[in-house]
């Protein structure tokens, strides 16, 4: 909270400064290649008011949500299993790291084969891209639960199940939130990749159309929208975390 409170004017200044740099960079460059922020933001406002962007955004968010929730549902228990059991970790981690190394665009042909081109394939890409990210962080969280706290739990007679629910789960919640944040960023990234590289729909279709028409203002307004979406997702989750986990003190400088 303090970070935001004190930093707000600075952040605003930083944003304005960035806009000025962008405006300068775009001046004198053909509109077919690049567009200045003034034009892009005006375009963003216009398309938002006309309802085009909100409708496309809703469509995009719908499958983002499904894919992301599926990833969370799979990655949380699996992450705990990997984090708490060295044999499971040793079995899963090499395979996990291997798949993680492949760029998502290279997976598109396989996604088409397995899931087709529409809803299922988009959900699958969102799932694939975010599940590993969440998994890695949750694994670290589960592994790093203070062993002393587990001992306290055992000392007071908690059984295995209770240890997991009453000690391990709350202890790794900060990591879970971080995992969700990292995962959501990747999910947004995957959402737009899916809409561009599979059958084009929603924001992806708008992006493609703008590109086809060399409408750079339109294209950049979509990129800005995505950036804002990512920023909102991250700040939203941070706010949620400080509400839900008032006990968790982030290390401050």
């Amino acid at each position, binding site marked *: 909270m303090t970070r935001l409170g004190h930093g707000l004017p600075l952040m605003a200044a930083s944003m304005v400064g960035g806009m000025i740099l962008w405006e300068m960079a775009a001046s004198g460059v053909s509109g077919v290649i690049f567009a200045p922020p003034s034009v892009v933001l005006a375009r963003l406002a216009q398309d938002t008011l006309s309802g085009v962007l909100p409708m496309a955004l809703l469509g995009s968010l719908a499958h983002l949500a499904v894919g992301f929730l599926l990833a969370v549902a799979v990655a949380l228990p699996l992450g705990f299993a990997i984090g708490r059991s060295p044999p499971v970790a040793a079995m899963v981690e090499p395979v996990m*790291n291997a798949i993680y190394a492949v760029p998502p665009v290279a997976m598109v042909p*396989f996604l088409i084969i397995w899931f087709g081109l529409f809803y299922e394939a988009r959900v699958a890409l969102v799932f694939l891209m975010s599940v590993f990210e969440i998994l890695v962080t949750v694994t670290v969280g589960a592994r790093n639960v203070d062993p002393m706290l587990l001992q306290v739990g055992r000392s007071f007679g908690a059984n295995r199940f209770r240890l997991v629910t009453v000690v391990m789960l709350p202890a790794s919640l900060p990591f879970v939130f971080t995992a969700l944040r990292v995962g959501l960023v990747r999910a947004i990234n995957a959402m737009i*990749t899916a809409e561009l590289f599979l059958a084009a729909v929603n924001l992806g279709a708008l992006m493609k159309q703008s590109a086809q028409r060399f409408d750079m203002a339109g294209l950049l307004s979509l990129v800005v929208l995505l950036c804002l979406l990512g920023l909102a997702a991250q700040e939203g989750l941070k706010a949620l975390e400080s509400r839900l986990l008032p006990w968790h003190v982030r290390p401050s400088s």
Partner: protein
Amino acid sequence: MKRLGYNLLGIATALALWELAGRWVGANLFAPPTLVLVEFAQLARNGQIFVELAASLRQMLVGFGLACLIGLPAGVAMGRSSLVDALFHPWLSMFVVTSVAALVPLFVLVFGTGFWFRAAIVFVASVWYVMLTVYQGARGIEPRFIDVGRSFSAGRLQAFWTILLPALYPYIVAAMRIGLVHAIRAMVVAEMFIILGYGGMIYRAGYAISTAPLLALLVTLMLVSIAANEVLRVTGRWLAPWYEERTASTGAQRI
């Protein structure tokens, strides 16, 4: 030793499942590992795969090196100064969302398709992750370490070299490892777009009717990525014996 056994068991299970799935759907849709191995043997005999891979990795290393060179100090600065943090954090939060695939067209315009294009793409794909990891580490340094330095009347620069840097070391290694995975992936995406180097090979393999060549290239990529990561991990340990795996892994608390 026991760990290695489990590693192998996990890999064997994955390979067996893949083999079954591959035989079930056929090589055109998902080639089984036995076929991929044959394909790989052919590619390896030809040798071009390694030439391309080496050239691509060299360019990747430049972009990645720049990302570390800039990202590491920038991340530390953000973590230690609330002013720098406030100035850069919103941009960081936004840029980390943008996908490489969306940036490539813009970068082609600015950098062409030569050496610096690939280096630049790799740079922007990895620098945010490098920064964020080190940022987390720098924020988390316990003030008492700094106080120890103060009490021995260390100057700011001295404090940096003797206290901040060693305390940050695990995060630096973690940042480089996380950044490297992103860098290698970005290298491939960029090259798939301009159809050069190893990514170009992957792109061309995508045109083949059988999926075996594509999979052979992807598996090689996986091996390279894992090997590179392992090299960083081992080097990290060798360079700094006090480096602890466990502390470093908290570096995964990234954003």
